């Protein structure tokens, strides 16, 4: 087998494809990349469809050694990347040769990086998806939800570089720098159980990301909001749902959320903003802004249009072996 050998797995590195869909009936969550925007760009840079399997690297520390010729790209958080000890730019594809060592440092802004490879990592799906969900013990290289381990081989195809290296246009690269985000919210679910005053408190307050935040949900801390009801019959939970338990501190439920739950919910964070939230480190801050479902649909359509119509740029300063240049420049193009 050929591929990228895991020399060091890093802090928490998980193979993810676009997610596990259609399995809620047996209680399975969706998994998939927390920052779906960074994920799709990583795949696009490698010439993949947006559903190909890439590695979600939380914080960093992943070290790989290639046994083949291919291309890789790292997007997402500002994680210093080197190829054979030479700094390499993020949001851009690089040619990799057998024996090349790909090293990720630790994030300086943001917290989730996405490492894609040409053709996608070849990982057998379980329930139609390679996405790793540790809580459910499903997916990933060993199909049992285990994060990457030292010594494993991430299988990929040999891809001779015929397109040259490419980069995401600078204006489309997100800035994860200030550890804060504005999250747009479609009101829904039990929103009527939150009085106008409670909603005003919610939408005018700043909330901080706590340490108890993970792929299941981000627990926030700030002004307490109190619904008029304490619990509900357990019901289905969608991505981004904002749940308010008895302590009045909101929790935004993410990709590995449990599929049903009985806490009152105010609505759901727009999917386009989930990645911004998931890139925050503990202590990062968020504010919320209400939008209508029609606005949400327009924003989604616009985003899709922009992604499909954006052109990648050829990297003129890349050398044929992909070890770059100007690489002295920051990981952000």
């Amino acid at each position, binding site marked *: 087998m050929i591929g990228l050998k895991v020399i060091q797995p890093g802090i928490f590195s998980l193979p993810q494809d676009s997610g596990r869909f259609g399995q809620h*009936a*047996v209680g399975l969550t969706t998994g998939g990349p927390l920052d779906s925007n960074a994920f799709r760009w990583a795949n696009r840079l490698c010439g993949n469809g947006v559903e190909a399997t890439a590695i979600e690297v939380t914080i960093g520390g992943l070290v790989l050694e290639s046994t083949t010729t291919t291309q890789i790209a790292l997007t997402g958080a500002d994680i210093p990347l080197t190829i054979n000890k030479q700094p390499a730019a993020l949001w851009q594809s690089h040619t990799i040769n057998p024996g090349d060592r790909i090293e990720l440092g630790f994030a300086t802004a943001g917290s989730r990086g996405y490492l894609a490879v040409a053709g996608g990592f070849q990982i057998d799906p379980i*329930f139609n998806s390679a996405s790793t969900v540790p809580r459910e013990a499903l997916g990933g290289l060993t199909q049992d939800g285990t994060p990457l381990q030292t010594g494993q081989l991430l299988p990929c195809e040999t891809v001779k570089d015929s397109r040259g290296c490419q980069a995401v246009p600078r204006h489309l690269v997100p800035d994860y720098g200030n550890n804060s985000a504005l999250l747009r919210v479609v009101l829904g679910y039990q929103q009527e159980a939150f009085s106008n005053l409670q909603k005003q408190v919610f939408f005018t307050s700043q909330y901080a990301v706590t340490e108890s935040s993970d792929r299941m949900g981000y627990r926030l801390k700030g002004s307490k909001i109190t619904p008029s009801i304490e619990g509900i*019959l357990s*019901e289905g939970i969608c*991505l981004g749902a904002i749940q308010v338990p008895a302590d009045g501190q909101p929790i935004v439920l993410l990709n590995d959320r449990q599929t049903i739950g009985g806490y009152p919910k105010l609505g759901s964070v727009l999917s386009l903003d989930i990645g911004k939230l998931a890139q925050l480190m503990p202590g990062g801050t968020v504010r919320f802004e209400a939008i209508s479902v029609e606005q949400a649909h327009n924003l989604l359509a616009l985003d899709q249009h922009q992604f499909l119509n954006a052109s990648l740029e050829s990297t003129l300063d890349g050398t044929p072996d992909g070890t770059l240049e100007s690489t002295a420049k920051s990981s952000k193009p």
Partner: protein
Amino acid sequence: MSSPQQTISIAGENSLIVYFGDKPGAAIASQVAQTAQQLRESLSQVLIDLIPSYASLLVIYNPLQTDHNAVRKSIRHALSNLTDDENNESNKGQTQGSLVSLPVYYSTESGPDLQALADGAGLTIEQVIAIHQQTEYRVYAIGFAPGFAYLGEVDPRIAAPRLATPRQKVPRGAVAIADRQTAVYPAQSPGGWNLIGLCPQRMFDPNANPTMPVQVGDRVRFEAIDKHIFLALGGEL
């Protein structure tokens, strides 16, 4: 006929939730199951997934292919087609779900909370075991963990609150009671329900087809087996 209690609310940018009432029960469980089945067909391409639960159905659609008004229309249509399962023989299979029988080895050996539950209820262990088997349960929801089916409703005589301190490890197959719900743990996990026995049948097996022996809306009966049969069926103590 559909009842006026049903409401459709927005859940998020790609989800609507249908509420069928305030209290779970057999009639509502069958309405949830019927609506889910109809929407699977009528929404097909634009449907991403459904989450049926006690008295609600979350409908997740692809917002790049449709919008919430069109999905609402499909939901209203499905609701207007709901039949009253008591009065419609032809729909019985669909609305009442399958009847699934699950074997249970009830004992203090396999159910460490059986004695305490019996004591708390002022019953003998034998009475608790008999009462647990008398009810035909409905699968109200599946969630919490893969394959975890919430069954209701437990006879009030043997309903018991969750343990004050949840266990770190509840074994796979543990048959448990919490308030008026009962369940079989599909895998070893932490848990705070009262354990009264063990079921040798796998409730969730990724390699099996179907993955689970039950789905939401099905009916479940428990049947006592002895230790010998439990072990013969592959049970482990």
